[in-house]
């Protein structure tokens, strides 16, 4: 790019912690006019925290921030807007029942007619076709993002942050977004582009930055990099960390066995043509990035969403599109991804939570004694810490809440358990407890389908891994292929695999 382009934003040695958890460990970054800087990183690498600091939502613990060469103190979102830094969020925050124009003008201290003519001019320049009188809830995600971009440009933004803008866009929508990015680039706007898709990085960015574990591991002009280099940058530096607990994995000859769970090329909303098998006593990982479609697959198998094509077989019995209750009865259980939204009954007792799924097997009346005994059994078995069975579950720690959910699942006596992000949001001790539980379950012959965005976790626990990339199954890793590099590559859709998987 131009040699003497002005530096728009400069971040120096930014640090940020939440409750002793260091999320950013000294990040330095800058962007000049007309640059598109791709920021790539796994889940939890600190991308969103960094962007929130850049837009003034969070305050950095240490480090300096310069906008337009000026050092900024006491930064906040309104200063950010004033200085021309604007974030286009992944899920646009619009007012659904207002028109496009109303969304653009609300809360904006400017004459409405000026706004309108400016908007019209912008839309024309960008070559978009947007009716100002349409209701926001009738817009597609792509149009909502366009609206957010216009919102940013109306505020004369010089730095736009696009947070995974293509995650919900169709191919042609993506193309038109890229054209806009090109135009903005030409007009001197600096763009931070957050993405998981490496192809896009090479297609539109001028620079790439890789963030891992709160640090920048790779930074530079895009033409210096290849895909493989980017993947390497995403991987942990030394793979030989000492772990307190070990997982026994044995390669098994599976040809002679009948799979417990057979998923045969199923399609549905958010995924297409997915096939995999789970055998007795093994942990199968479903790796992939957030939004790759793993939860949608799990929910379709479980009966929450519909399977439009293909079959799911459990012990040879067809369980495709059964109701949730029937699925549970036939021996498949699911631990939901979002514990608070789908997992726990927050304002009732631990006992009621644990027994929620076997009520129906008790007959018309609930049997208090039986429930108490059952709860006692599981509380001891999973070492759930509580003072009384009558404790409200929300008074428990995240880890103990999760154990209670696991107890509830186990009480239905399933053969296959789908665990969706079982260790999200819980502390280290509880985490290793849950690993312990998984190991025990495996030994007892339960089959587990583990969905996790935690690379280490899925790599260490799984006997085999299927990788989901943009709703399709991109690779299957056998025991001997599982290592951090391969899992990472597969999650980003670049794993070529052994010859047999090409």
């Amino acid at each position, binding site marked *: 790019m131009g040699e003497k382009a002005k530096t728009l934003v400069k971040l120096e040695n930014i640090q940020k912690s939440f409750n002793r958890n260091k999320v950013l460990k000294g990040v330095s970054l800058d962007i000049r006019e007309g640059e598109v800087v791709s920021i790539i990183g796994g889940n939890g690498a600190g991308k969103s925290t960094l962007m929130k600091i850049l837009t003034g939502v969070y305050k950095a613990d240490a480090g300096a921030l310069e906008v337009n060469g000026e050092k900024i103190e006491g930064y906040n979102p309104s200063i950010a807007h004033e200085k021309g830094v604007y974030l286009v969020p992944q899920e646009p925050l619009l007012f659904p029942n207002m028109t496009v124009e109303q969304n653009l003008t609300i809360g904006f201290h400017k004459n409405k007619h000026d706004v309108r003519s400016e908007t019209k001019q912008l839309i024309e320049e960008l070559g978009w076709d947007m009716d100002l009188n349409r209701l926001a809830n009738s817009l597609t995600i792509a149009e909502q993002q366009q609206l957010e971009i216009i919102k940013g440009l109306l505020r004369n933004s010089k730095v736009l942050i696009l947070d995974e803008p293509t995650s919900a866009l169709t191919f042609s929508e993506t193309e038109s977004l890229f054209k806009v990015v090109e135009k903005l680039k030409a007009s001197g706007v600096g763009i931070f582009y957050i993405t998981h898709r490496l192809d896009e990085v090479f297609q539109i960015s001028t620079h790439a930055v890789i963030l891992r574990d709160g640090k920048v591991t790779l930074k530079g002009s895009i033409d210096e990099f290849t895909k493989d280099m980017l993947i390497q940058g995403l991987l942990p530096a030394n793979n030989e960390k000492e772990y307190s607990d070990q997982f026994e994995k044995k390669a098994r000859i599976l040809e002679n066995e009948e799979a417990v769970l057979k998923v045969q090329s199923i399609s549905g909303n958010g995924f297409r043509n997915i096939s995999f098998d789970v055998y007795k006593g093994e942990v199968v990982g479903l790796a992939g990035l957030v939004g790759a479609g793993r939860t949608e697959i799990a929910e379709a198998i479980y009966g929450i969403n519909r399977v439009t094509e293909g079959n799911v077989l459990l012990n040879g019995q067809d369980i495709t599109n059964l109701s*949730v209750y029937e699925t*549970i009865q036939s021996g498949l259980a699911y631990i939901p991804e979002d514990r608070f*939204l789908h997992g726990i*009954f927050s304002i009732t007792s631990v006992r009621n939570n644990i027994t929620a799924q076997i009520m129906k097997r008790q007959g*018309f009346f609930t049997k208090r004694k039986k429930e108490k005994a059952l709860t006692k059994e599981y509380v001891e078995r999973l070492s759930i810490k509580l003072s009384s069975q009558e404790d409200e579950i929300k008074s428990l720690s995240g880890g103990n809440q999760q154990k209670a959910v696991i107890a509830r699942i186990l009480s239905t006596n399933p053969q296959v358990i789908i665990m969706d992000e079982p260790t999200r*949001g819980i502390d280290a001790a509880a985490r290793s407890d849950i690993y312990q539980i998984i190991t025990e379950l495996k030994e007892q012959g339960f089959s587990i389908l583990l969905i996790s965005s*935690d690379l280490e976790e899925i790599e260490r626990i799984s006997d085999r891994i299927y990788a989901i990339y943009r709703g399709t199954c991109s690779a299957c890793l056998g025991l001997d292929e599982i290592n951090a590099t391969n899992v990472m590559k597969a999650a980003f859709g670049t794993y070529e695999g052994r010859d047999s998987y090409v």
Partner: protein
Amino acid sequence: MLSKIPKWNLVLILVLVVEIIVFGLMNPRFWNITILLNSFNDFIGIAIIGFFVTLVVITGGIDISGGSIIGLTSVVTGILSQVVGLNIWLSIILAILAGGLCGLLNGVLIAYGGVQAMVITLGGMLLYSGIAIVLVGLSGVSTYEGISGFPMEFSQIAYGKVMGIPNSVILFLLMFAIAYILLHLTRYGRSIYLTGINQHAAEYSGINTKRIITSTYVLSGLSAGVAGVMLTSYLGSARADFGSEYLMPILTVVVLGGTLITGGKGGVFGTAIASIIVGFLQVGLQMGGVSTQYIGLATGLLLIISVAFLGISSDFKSNMKRLITPKKIVGGKG
């Protein structure tokens, strides 16, 4: 936190005891057990609908159509037995079933249609009392006098006694027992709570929440049917506007009884005590020579105070949620 509701029940019992003592001191006649028991007839409708509206509210819904279902069932009873000439007991059963049908319509539209309970039952309220008025109009009965001339055995429903205890008290206890057993002792009741606390989690646990929600409205409609029959028997005629003033009292006893308006918590015991408190308040004030109009002041204040008290705890809940959520984001490293 956990013992909040039982504690609230204690408060209610205390209020009831104080009420009885104070009114007794004002007018010793209040301590006459016969008078107290007979007064049940005056609030039985509110109480028994309240029991089942409690179930509705626990699922996270609301039902304001109960009062107008009273009017409808009253009219249906009257027309079937007096105009069509059916057997009185058959008429009663059909009328109660009609109440259940109204509840079914409410429930289906709310649970399966996904429309706000408030709107549907508001429309239902207009519709059911509208049907009652239409039925009266079409049958050519005088709107003001209503349908009368019921047989003796029909008025026995409200005025009869079993071993010296008025039927209304027995009905009160019976309906209370049904609601209590259903809600607190059966898996159906447990499903009601779980649905109200977290409908998503209930669905993920294999509970058919739509069916559960629908059924609570059906029960609420049936109970309104029973109340309609009772009121018709008590007042000796069938009229479309019976129960029209019950809307607010029903909700008052449910909320006063400690049931969380947002669902998931509460019980019929509280509703029962609250309905007795409100009912006795009326009797006591009448006896004490105070205008009955003051009842509203007392119940209104009680309502707001109790909700403010219970509402603070729900504030707690959202704080808890806020505490848990950021942890989740921060902890989820990969």
